């Protein structure tokens, strides 16, 4: 595996693994104690207000019980996270097995696409809107 591709794959697999463990941990917490464990948001600790990603864990948990609507109402980013978490690790592993770099090429193209001005501005507006919604919901 070449340097940059290797680093990227390793990093993304590590992030996926840690996220998976986190979700599993929360799932166990929920079934034994009925509620989620500590929040990890640094922003919330300091300001008391939710951040754009607030509620993502809860949203993903909702999704895994099949409640798509509820999940979207908690935080739409949960759906995004769930999709990425399902697809990215599997794709990377498939690449590793088939010794291809299809994901790496896709990743590079996606990065270039996301750098375009109108995309950047749209995404920023969407994230800000979601953040404001989070605050109004007092997550």
């Amino acid at each position, binding site marked *: 595996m070449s340097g940059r591709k290797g680093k*990227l794959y390793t*990093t*993304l697999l590590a*992030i996926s693994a*840690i*996220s998976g463990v*986190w979700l599993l941990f929360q799932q166990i917490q929920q079934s034994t104690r009925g509620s989620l464990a500590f929040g*990890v*948001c*640094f*922003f919330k600790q300091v300001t008391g207000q939710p*951040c*754009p*990603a*607030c509620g*993502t864990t809860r949203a993903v948990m909702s999704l895994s019980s099949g409640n798509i609507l509820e999940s979207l109402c908690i935080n739409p*980013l949960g759906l*995004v*996270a769930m999709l*990425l978490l399902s697809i990215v690790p599997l794709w990377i592993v498939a690449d590793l097995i088939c010794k291809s770099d299809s994901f790496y090429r896709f*990743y590079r193209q*996606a*990065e270039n696409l*996301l*750098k375009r001005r109108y995309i950047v501005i749209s995404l920023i507006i969407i*994230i800000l809107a979601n953040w404001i919604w989070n605050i109004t919901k007092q997550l």
Partner: protein
Amino acid sequence: MAMNGKFFEAHQAPAIREQLLGLDESKAAVVQAISFKDPTMILIVSLLAGSFGIDRFMVGDVGLGVAKLLTCGGFGVWAIVDLFLIMGVTRQKNYELLQQTLAY
């Protein structure tokens, strides 16, 4: 070079100096015009908005920035780790940008 030294890693400086000395007029002008990212500025961004992945977006790591945002700064851990990593990453990206420009 004196002006732009801080944008690059120390061990890269001699090699860059060599390259700059060998440049012709037109190339030199292009190089002068490149806007590099200031590692210190990015560090400040990382301190203030690290959990939102904004520091990663600014150095061009869009994918990692998204991952960082979705996980709230990697559950806080990544945000802290990046405080140490981000200046080096910025300098490396600056170097790559310089090399890319020189290659044309």
